[in-house]
């Protein structure tokens, strides 16, 4: 009897503590993998509003964007977190790439500078995260220095990770290649743009943050 009471009391304490805590869920990954598209999808689904703008030109998100107190539901379960969308992490940022995308020289150089600061900020914010969703583009080679560095560092910091292989709606997508690249991780294929497999993604979020 005492044991049952203790268990009930512990659970009660746990739930009170959990509700008070600001759980921060970070979206990390290389540029143009679809982090903001996924953030918008989550925020639209549960709050009815978007987080930020998306673009075909890389480094569209150059500042940390936050949506606070998103509550997602699955059956009788509920999960509340603050969603942190981060700028894409890159090893090389060159304004000439933005010129090719149609920006003026002045705009391109400004974008390059802001994107560089964005990388520093994204890395700094990592210590604030309770869990991270690494968003990868499933049409691209997963074995990039950026991907391996991000995932390796999350592991070293003991931050729970869910890997999302995005853009599975595209012909060039290769989900198996991403799954095989990170066998020790939970990898889920989605299309953030079209909402493909998004319910499965929410289920995985419960496992990640529980």
């Amino acid at each position, binding site marked *: 009897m005492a044991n049952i009471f203790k268990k009930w009391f512990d659970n009660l304490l746990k739930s009170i503590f959990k509700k008070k805590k*600001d759980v*921060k869920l970070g979206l990390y990954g290389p540029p143009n993998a679809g982090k903001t598209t996924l953030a918008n999808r989550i925020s639209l689904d549960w709050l009815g509003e978007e987080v930020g703008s998306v673009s075909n030109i890389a480094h569209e998100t150059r500042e*940390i*964007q*936050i949506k606070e107190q998103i509550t997602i539901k699955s059956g009788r379960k509920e999960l509340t977190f*603050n969603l942190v969308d981060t700028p894409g*992490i*890159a*090893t*090389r*940022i*060159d*304004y*000439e790439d933005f010129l090719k995308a149609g920006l003026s020289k002045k705009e*391109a*150089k400004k974008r*390059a*500078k802001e994107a*560089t*600061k964005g*990388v*520093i*900020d994204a*890395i*700094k*914010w*990592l*210590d*604030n995260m309770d869990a991270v969703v690494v968003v990868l583009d499933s049409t691209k080679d997963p074995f990039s*220095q*950026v991907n391996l*560095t991000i995932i390796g*560092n999350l592991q070293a910091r003991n931050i729970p990770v869910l890997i999302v292989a995005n853009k599975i709606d595209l012909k060039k997508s290769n989900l198996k290649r991403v799954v095989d690249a990170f066998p020790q991780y939970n990898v889920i294929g989605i299309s953030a743009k079209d909402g493909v497999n998004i319910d499965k993604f929410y289920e995985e979020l419960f496992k990640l943050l529980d």
Partner: protein
Amino acid sequence: MPHQCVRCGKIYEDNSKNILTGCECGSRLFFYVKKSKLKKAEEFNENLTEEEKVQIEKDIYDLIGKEIESEDKPVILDFESIAVKKPGKYELDLVQLFKGEPVVIKLQEGKYFIDLKSSLGSYSKKDFKQH
């Protein structure tokens, strides 16, 4: 370790007074250069136009944060974490950045390091709420 002025490219030895007071050209921004990379640093500076050097200096101040500029103290940049090849061309060493290796080394009555967390201001809960 030698230090190179970002604006004019002049190289100063570690014990030079100019590192504390600023370069003869008036700039207070220096690159910290390892001896093994000294030649590369000299070549890098020679290949830039005056306009490009001024722009790089301005861009770096934007990157490291305005509060550092306003203090009017010499700032020394570690060449290892972020390399500015030309205005608008950056190379980032992610391994160093994730390690939290210093991006900026600032001099103020001697030397001290500013790591990633403090160089751009640490993110307290208050900052988090402001976003």
